[in-house]
Structures are given as structure tokens and as C-alpha cells.
């Protein structure tokens, strides 16, 4: 499938979760693809604007109603009410609601990071006790999400931590909190519903601005639901299609490129994306580093007289890997491991065969390339190729494994490992190899 088809389906909420994960990742690492998305969003805005201006001409009303034997007055009166509700019906018997669907993110808001309509945000929150970053997606209290709302939040802050706040706000009347506001106040603001935030802002007594106790004009009878979700660089926050009045989603752990997209009806426009200044300092690299410690249970060939040599054919060693993942598929890195190769070499001299055997533990240094293919959330098969060497000769190896990642940063890798050592003796090349089970822990930064 072409990437542009992904864009098209994404705009309509028609991507499967796995496709969407893949799509968002591609977006996060490719400026060109993001530019393409911006073009489509702009196109969509153009279509939406076109839909809004389309209305039945009065001469047509007059002609049809005249043919029915009545004046045009009725149609003209009702026309205004019906205006903007283009094709708002459904053949399936389920009303599709408002005039048109639209990505609520404008190209401008995506590109600039900060749109005209500014929602409540506070840059210092990035350095607050919420650690690496805080993001919130607050829905307005008065509008209804007719279709699945998809919000994908990606922020870059590899080591410095980052912060962004995405908010859907129809009128965009909320104000940007002062940069000097206290983190706790900002945090409170993030927990505030769209309705209460708006009311507080309109009352001119925002705690984000002056630190004073807010005096909202009205109170909410019951506290709104707040969902806290952890988000990784390619995660998506799904909100149910039904209206989530006063629902606040607080997202933490943002650590890659910022983008927030939602699909709503036109009345929900515009979506506002506010990017904190701290995000401007993000590391240029889009990938991630990881380290892994690996335990190996290997068997070595060829067969030698292990008993005489006093060594165990079944080895249990450790390996350390440090990798850099360019994207979801490709990673490179270096490995350091200890391995024992059973080595048998011989020479013929004076009609006698001299056979030598040894099996000693040796240090193996290598570089590796790793290809990963995510299957399901948290389950990623991968294949690693290694090329390195020991003091005796080059070592080639590979590993077929599956990574299980129950946590965002931590993964368990289980697989099969094979290595081949080539060594030289008296102008002859000999080989030894190992094969066995490996398992380990991987930590992603």
C-alpha cells in the first residue's frame, strides 16, 4: 500500500490499529511524509469550506416548490436551517450527523506547532514532577464526538523531557498560561475539563495566570472522569465515539515527535496544538538507543573429548548488546560476549596425524544489524546478524528472537542464537560453531 493511501485512510479513521501504528511511526521519522499529510489536511479543509458554502439556490427552491404547487417561502426559510448539514443522512439508517467530516487539525497548526486558537498550556509543566513530559487532550464540554476520535500524540524529548498539550477547542478562546506559572497550577489546569477551564478563563481568574485561587462562575456538579494513559512514541489514544463530556485524557511520557490529529465533525474545529518551548530543544535523532543483557545456553560443535579437556560442551555465557534503532524496523549496534568454541585442528607430519583439541572461553566483539517486525502490541519478532571476531579469527552469527515488551521501555527477548568461528592453523581453515537458546532483557532509552 502506498503511504498516501495510509494518509487517506487515516483521515477517515479507516486504518487498523497495526496500520495506524505503522503510519504514525513513518510520520514521526519522515518530514516529507508529514508534509504530505499537511497537504491532505489542507485539502480537507478546502473541501470542508466548499461544503459549507454549498446551498440550494433560491431559484431552484422556487422552481421545485412551484412545481409542487406551493410558494418558495417554505423552502427558503428552511434552507438556512438545513444549510451546512450536507448529506447528513445515512442509507444504513444511522444518521451520520453533521455536514462533513474533517480532520480538525489544520496544516498550519501542525506545521507551526502552535495554532491561532491557543489552548491552556504551561511550559514549566515540562519540568515539573511529572518527569519527562505531560500532555493532555481535553474535549470541550459542549460538542459531541460523532465519530471515532483519534488522537495520536508524539513528542520528541529523548533525554531532556518534553511537554505538549493538545486540546480540541471549538472557539479557541482559552488563553496560554503565563510561562511563570507554577507547575502545580499547570497540572491542575491539565486536570480541568474543557468546560471548567473555559469558564475559569472567561472569569479572568485563572490559577495558571496569577496563582490566585480560581473563582469559577459555576461549578460542575460531579467531577469529570479523568483517564491517565501512558504513551510511547507510536501509541494512539482512542476515545470512544460516544460523547465524552468533560472527559480529560492526561498523557505522560512523551518522547518523540509531536503530532496530534483528531477526526471530528466541523463544529469541533479547530483542534489546537500547543507545543511547549522545551520541545524546541529535542535531539535531532528520531531513533532510540537500547541496551540488552543476554544469557546464552549454547552447544558447540565439533565434538571433541570434553571429558579429557575438562570442559563442558553445554555452555552458559553472557552477552551485552548496545543498539540504536533508526525506526521500528532497523537497528544497528555492537555486541560483546563470551563464548566457548570447540576447536579441533590437526596436522600430518612424518606419516603421523597430530590432532589438537581445545575449548576455551574467548571474548567476541561484533557489530550487528537487527530487523524487527512488530506483529501485535508488545510482540516483535526480530532477526539479528552479527559480524565480529575473536583473537583466533572472525565470527559470524545470527539470532532469531521475539521481543515481548510488557512495559514501554523494558522488553524480554527470547530466541535462538547461532555463531560460527573460522580459524586458521597451518594454512588450513577450520570452523567451529555454536547453537542454542538465548534470553535477555532489553532496556530502551
Amino acid at each position, binding site marked *: 500500500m502506498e503511504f498516501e*493511501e495510509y494518509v487517506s485512510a487515516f483521515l*477517515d479513521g479507516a486504518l487498523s490499529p497495526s496500520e495506524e501504528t505503522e503510519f504514525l511511526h513513518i510520520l514521526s521519522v519522515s518530514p516529507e511524509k508529514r508534509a504530505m499529510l499537511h497537504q491532505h489536511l489542507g485539502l480537507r479543509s478546502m473541501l470542508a469550506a466548499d461544503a459549507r*458554502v454549498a446551498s440550494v439556490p433560491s431559484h431552484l427552491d422556487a422552481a421545485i416548490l412551484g412545481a409542487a404547487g406551493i410558494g418558495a417561502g417554505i423552502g427558503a426559510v428552511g434552507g438556512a436551517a438545513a444549510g451546512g448539514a450536507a448529506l447528513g443522512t445515512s442509507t444504513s439508517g444511522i444518521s451520520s450527523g453533521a455536514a462533513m467530516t474533517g480532520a480538525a487539525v489544520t496544516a498550519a497548526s501542525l506545521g507551526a506547532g502552535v495554532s491561532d486558537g491557543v489552548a491552556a498550556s504551561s511550559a514549566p509543566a515540562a519540568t515539573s514532577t511529572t518527569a519527562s513530559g505531560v500532555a493532555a487532550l481535553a474535549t470541550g464540554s459542549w460538542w459531541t464526538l460523532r*465519530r471515532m476520535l483519534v488522537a495520536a500524540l508524539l513528542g520528541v524529548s529523548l533525554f531532556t523531557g518534553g511537554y505538549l498539550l493538545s486540546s480540541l477547542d471549538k472557539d479557541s478562546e482559552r488563553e496560554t498560561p503565563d510561562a511563570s506559572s507554577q507547575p502545580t497550577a499547570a497540572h491542575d489546569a491539565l486536570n480541568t475539563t474543557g468546560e471548567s477551564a473555559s469558564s475559569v478563563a472567561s472569569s479572568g481568574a485563572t490559577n495558571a495566570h496569577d496563582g490566585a485561587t480560581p473563582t469559577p462562575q459555576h461549578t460542575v456538579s460531579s467531577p469529570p472522569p479523568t483517564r491517565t494513559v501512558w504513551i510511547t512514541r507510536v501509541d494512539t489514544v482512542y476515545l470512544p465515539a460516544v460523547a465524552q463530556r468533560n472527559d480529560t485524557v492526561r498523557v505522560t511520557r512523551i518522547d518523540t515527535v509531536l503530532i496530534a490529529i483528531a477526526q471530528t465533525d466541523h463544529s469541533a474545529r479547530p483542534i489546537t496544538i500547543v507545543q511547549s518551548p522545551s520541545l524546541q530543544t529535542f535531539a535531532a535523532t528520531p531513533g532510540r538507543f537500547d541496551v540488552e543483557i543476554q544469557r546464552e545456553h549454547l552447544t558447540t560443535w565439533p565434538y571433541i573429548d570434553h571429558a579429557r579437556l575438562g570442559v563442558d560442551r553445554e555452555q552458559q555465557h553472557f552477552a551485552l548488546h548496545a543498539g540504536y534503532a533508526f525506526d521500528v524496523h532497523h537497528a544497528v549496534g555492537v555486541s560483546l560476549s563470551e563464548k566457548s568454541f570447540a576447536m579441533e585442528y590437526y596436522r600430518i607430519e612424518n606419516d603421523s596425524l597430530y590432532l589438537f583439541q581445545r575449548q576455551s572461553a574467548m571474548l567476541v566483539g561484533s557489530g550487528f544489524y537487527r530487523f524487527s517486525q512488530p506483529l501485535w502490541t508488545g510482540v516483535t519478532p526480530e532477526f539479528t546478524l552479527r559480524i565480529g571476531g575473536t583473537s583466533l579469527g572472525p565470527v559470524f552469527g545470527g539470532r532469531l528472537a521475539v521481543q515481548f515488551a510488557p512495559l514501554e521501555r523494558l522488553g524480554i527477548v527470547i530466541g535462538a542464537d547461532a555463531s560460527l568461528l573460522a580459524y586458521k592453523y597451518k594454512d588450513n581453515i577450520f570452523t567451529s560453531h555454536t547453537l542454542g537458546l538465548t534470553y535477555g532483557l532489553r532496556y530502551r532509552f
Partner: protein
Amino acid sequence: MLDEVSQSVSLDRELQQRIRNGDNRAFGELYTRHKQPVYVYCTRFVGHDGTAEDVFQDVFIGMLERIRNGSEIENVAAYLMRSARNRCLNVLRDRKFPVDIADVEDRLGHDSAVEFDTHDALQGAMREIPDENREALVLCEYGGYSYEEIARMTEVPLTTVRKRIFRARQKLRELLNPQG
């Protein structure tokens, strides 16, 4: 949501009954309730205002005659869209209206974006899109229909709908963003 739909359907039935009883004003109400989506569909799908208005008119007059002849339309919205679609396809097949492709190309190729009228450019570009792709896009973008609904309406598989909308958007993007 379902309540709203059922209420809408029952109101449509009541209006139809009133029309059959000779109440012409009921047709005015029915027309007002449904004219906008049908109009947008016709104009954006056909791409030629005069022809689209003829189609639009035929659709509603046809519905009026049908009701006056005693027929009960179960789902007026669906009936109108189906009727509009069939008529639009007919006129598109016959191509009896002028399409100023050369003019569109001239305008799309114009250097100055400032002199570019967005609406005209969009409509011109829409006309460049193959009919089946344009229809899917119109239903999706202007109508807010889901892929499943469009697949049912146009009687094609879901994957085809997705492809058609993608192709239409791709074409639009190419035409309206010549540098991109």
C-alpha cells in the same frame, strides 16, 4: 442516535401521508429537510452546476410524483440519494454538458496563486477525477459517510472504496499542489 433516526423516518412518513392527503406544504417541509445533502451530492458529483440542478430538480419532482401516486417511501434520505446517484450516473455517462477542461488546466497551471479562486480550482480539479473516485470522495468528504456506508451505496467492496477515495485525494493533491 437511533432514536433521532427513527424520529426522522416517522416524521418523513407523516409528511408523506399529508402529501397524499393533498397537503402541498408538507412537501415543502420534506423538501427542506432533505434538499441540502442531495444538492451538495449532485453538484459535487456531476461537477456542472446547471446539469446538477436539473438532476436535483428531477429527483425531488420524481419523489413528489411517487408519493402522490400512493407509494410509501421507507427511508426518504436513502431513496433520494439513490435516485440522485442513478440520475447523476446517467448524465455523467451521456456527458451532455460542457466540461471546460482546457480552462481548468489553464487555471491550474497558472503561476500566480493569488489570482487563483479556490472554489473554482477545487471544482475544476474535482472534474478531473474519474467519476467513481469522485463519487466516493464526495460521499466521504461532503457527506460524512463511512467507508462501509459508501460501499453499500455504491455496491463495491470496502477495499475498493478505500482505494477510490485515496485515488481521488491523490489526484486532487497533485492538481492543487503542483509543487508537492
